[in-house]
């Protein structure tokens, strides 16, 4: 039975005088806080936070948690997000006090274990990428992209190639690519995809010139296709004097199979929260470590960890772009990646990608009898179907499919992305789902395509809410609780 209290806000539960947290008494002889601070700096009262008992707080947040779908509870085939199982052992090991209770400004000599772990992770990521220069600092994939573009800008500036002001992005790319380029001070031009979903090499050629700084490539791309022309693309960009940036969002497809550094990338980021099983935390935290070629390593943000004999120490690279966030990086997320990579080891990681491919291709073989899949009958770790025909014939849109799937107990795939596919339905099953789950998902999809009317249009029916009014939310924004408005 659903707890009806669950959707009350903390502020509506507040009762004056309730409290959960108590501190010890201050020394009676000490000067009081208010006498130690200037009167004109003091607030009249503390902020009007809710007043709650501990039991209130626990029941509230436990009940709220039950309103979420999660990897622990449901199949979550959200394309491009790699919602794989988040190992419990990672949580326990990463929470050991010598890892989780370390202050970020502690001396190198006080944390040999932390630095050893981070150094080894740098080495592992460099090996998996085939790019030896590694910075663990960026806080998320988009942050890694931006950092790598700062590195590219510093590299070109030092070479005196300041006219290289253009970043090329693929039309199938994540929106973060052009947004990052803009913030890094570049202008952007879009390279088209061909009918086969791969980079249109002729279009790329026409846009390459002496203004080109970086081509940002996603490979496998957002359609789940490996761009077999990647070597040619890299050669073209390099001979125009540009660099290749690889958006590493889809690394779960190619671990130990092929390496960005081997197919021409000069810089890339990893999403350890996708590829290496860091939990997504309801939207974050992630991390966005970047790997670069030797000749770019001196520009990386600092600190990075170096090994000198048996000692590990933090150093800032000689021509560093500086830093992109405070302190070392998202060490908690990186620790989970380290534990994950050590769990699978040298041969296991390739098996991860092989099973990701197997699962995606198996699901594709079933789904292509239900939905159109515009880009072929093979994929890497994910595929993009289209609901265009269903929409025309049965008034069933990608959004309807997504909403109705929730009633069947499946999280929806990513819909309406990538932009190059009309009514896109982007499915990424990951390697941590059984054949039975994939069968059940395909069966649900099929049954939905047989449904009509309110069953579809008013879906979902079984969830705590259904089809919220997004337009009203944006038109008249209510972004906080207000005692007068509720």
């Amino acid at each position: 039975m659903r707890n009806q209290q669950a959707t009350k806000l903390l502020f509506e539960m507040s009762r004056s005088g309730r409290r959960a947290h108590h501190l010890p008494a201050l020394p009676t002889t000490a000067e009081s806080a208010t006498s130690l601070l200037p009167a004109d700096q003091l607030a009249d009262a503390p902020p009007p936070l809710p007043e709650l008992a501990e039991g209130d707080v626990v029941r509230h947040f436990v009940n709220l948690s039950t309103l979420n779908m999660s990897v622990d509870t449901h199949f979550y085939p959200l394309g491009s997000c790699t919602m794989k199982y988040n190992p419990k052992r990672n949580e326990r090991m990463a929470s050991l006090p010598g890892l989780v209770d370390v202050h970020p400004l502690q001396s190198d000599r006080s944390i040999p274990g932390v630095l050893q772990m981070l150094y080894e992770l740098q080495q592992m990521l460099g090996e998996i990428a085939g790019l030896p220069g590694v910075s663990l600092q960026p806080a998320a994939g988009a942050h890694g992209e931006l950092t790598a573009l700062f590195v590219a800008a510093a590299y070109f500036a030092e070479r005196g190639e300041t006219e290289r002001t253009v970043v090329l992005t693929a039309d199938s790319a994540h929106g973060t690519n052009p947004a990052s380029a803009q913030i890094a001070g570049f202008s952007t031009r879009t390279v088209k995809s061909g009918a086969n979903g791969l980079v249109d090499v002729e279009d790329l050629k026409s846009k390459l010139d002496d203004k080109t700084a970086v081509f940002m490539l996603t490979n496998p791309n957002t359609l789940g296709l490996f761009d077999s022309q990647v070597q040619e693309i890299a050669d073209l960009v390099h001979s125009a004097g540009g660099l290749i940036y690889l958006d590493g969002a889809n690394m779960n497809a190619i671990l130990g199979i092929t390496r960005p550094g081997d197919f021409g990338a000069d810089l890339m980021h990893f999403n350890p929260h996708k590829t290496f099983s860091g939990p997504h935390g309801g939207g974050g935290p992630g991390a966005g470590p970047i790997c670069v070629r030797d000749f770019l390593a001196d520009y990386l943000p600092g600190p990075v960890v170096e090994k000198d004999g048996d000692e590990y120490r933090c150093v800032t690279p000689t021509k560093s772009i500086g830093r992109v966030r405070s302190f070392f990086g998202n060490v908690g997320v990186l620790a989970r990646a380290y534990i994950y990579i050590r769990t699978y080891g040298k041969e296991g990681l390739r098996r991860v990608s092989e099973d990701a491919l197997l699962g995606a291709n198996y699901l594709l073989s079933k789904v292509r009898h239900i939905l159109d899949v515009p880009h072929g009958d093979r994929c890497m770790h994910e595929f993009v179907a289209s609901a265009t025909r269903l929409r025309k014939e049965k008034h069933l849109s990608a959004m309807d499919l997504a909403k109705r799937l929730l009633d069947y107990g499946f999280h929806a795939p990513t819909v309406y992305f990538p932009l190059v596919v009309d009514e896109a339905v982007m499915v990424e099953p990951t390697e941590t789902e059984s054949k039975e789950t994939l069968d059940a998902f395909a069966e649900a999809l099929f049954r939905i395509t047989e449904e009509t009317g309110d069953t579809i249009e008013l879906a979902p029916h079984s969830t705590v809410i259904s089809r919220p009014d997004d337009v009203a939310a944006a038109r008249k924004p209510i972004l906080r609780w207000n005692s007068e408005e509720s």
Partner: protein
Amino acid sequence: MNGYLFHTEDDRREMLRAIGATSIQEIIDVQVPAALQMKRPLDLPAAADEMSLERDLRRLSAGNASVSSHICFMGGGAYDHFIPAVVDEMASRGEYYTSYTPYQAEVSQGNLQVMFEYETLVSQITGLDVSNASLYDGGSAATEAVLMALSIVKKRSKVITSDAVHPEYRDILEAYLQNIDAELVVVPSGESGTSEALIDAIDDQTACVLVQHPNFYGRLEQVQQIADAAHAAGALVIQSFDPISVGLLKRPGDLGVDIAVAEGQCLGNPLQYGGPYLGIIACRKELMRRMPGRIAGQTTDRRGKRCWVLTLQTREQHIRREKATSNICSNQTLLALRATVYLSLLGPQGLKETAEHCVVKTNLARERFAASERFELVHAGPVFKEFLVRDRENDVEALLNHAQDQGVLAGVPLAPMDSQYSDCFLVAVTEKRTEAELDRLMEVIESASAARSNQLAQTL
């Protein structure tokens, strides 16, 4: 084979048959050119089972000093505040930490409501109208606020800040601004503090002023006066504040600040050597549509029921691409959840008392340093929860190493990040510290000189 894979050999055969392939290698070969495929296994350690790996990790963990094993007086932007058990319990629920961005609001009302509650709490502690659902950390949040101000105050490119703003925050700002058309002016703080210098530097080219209050040295700035001067010149004011401090001190919104940012680590988040942390940002509602990052808002569903969704998404990269207000496409929901639980537990009285403990015990520590022969307080005047100490023997590194070996993390040395105070260290005192621990701190660092003389005597 260690790991989390599902398929039996029978599964694999059946799946390959359905696909119409004879092997997974065949699926790879039709897509990845042979010349690009790896011909060798990755050069990584061998796979490890859970028991062996945990043994290794325990060994790595045991080698580190931490705030669990040592008494911590380190601050400088990250603090050893107490984390109530409820915070860890709630955040360790898989329904929270193994979910993702609430793209499907119907199955994400838990996270969305938490975001809305978080935004409300941030509004309450900042005294400002609108908070987003969080950014990466306090340092990058300060830079995002500056970028936001530059986009709002048109045709002005000057950003003014002071050297009493966290040095790493200024480094981030520098890294971001060097690639765009903007000028960063850093005014020196001097003995009397930075407020006057900041006010003097404001001119008609100034887009925004970034001030930290309490500042990097723990001191209080005159934010109201800075805000008045900036507004008179048509510029915006950004304050980096300490969320604990507003238990006692006026909030950014009460001081006339336009955009407030903070490091939210202090609100129930562990130190974990620097991250993940929580970037707090809030602004006046007139600036709302230039806010970076995700925002949750209230609406109703088709049955008229109150609910929550991600909103104002036309600011964001997945819609606007290169015209987005920021490239950020995530937020720190799990850490925002922890902050939300933390503030719910503390309430107004708990936050106030926590702030009082910081102020009172910091003063007790200052009295001890002031009475010491070896050390001097660099600044007179009020501080919140940390202060700068000068080592007259100019031997900070050895001093702190000695203290660490005696079980005390005595402070943050400034030499690596602030050359004007290379003979100084920052001492932070949170509500967790006791008088006995303050005594222990003094005992340990006062014995450092003696330890050194003994060592010298022995080598002679």
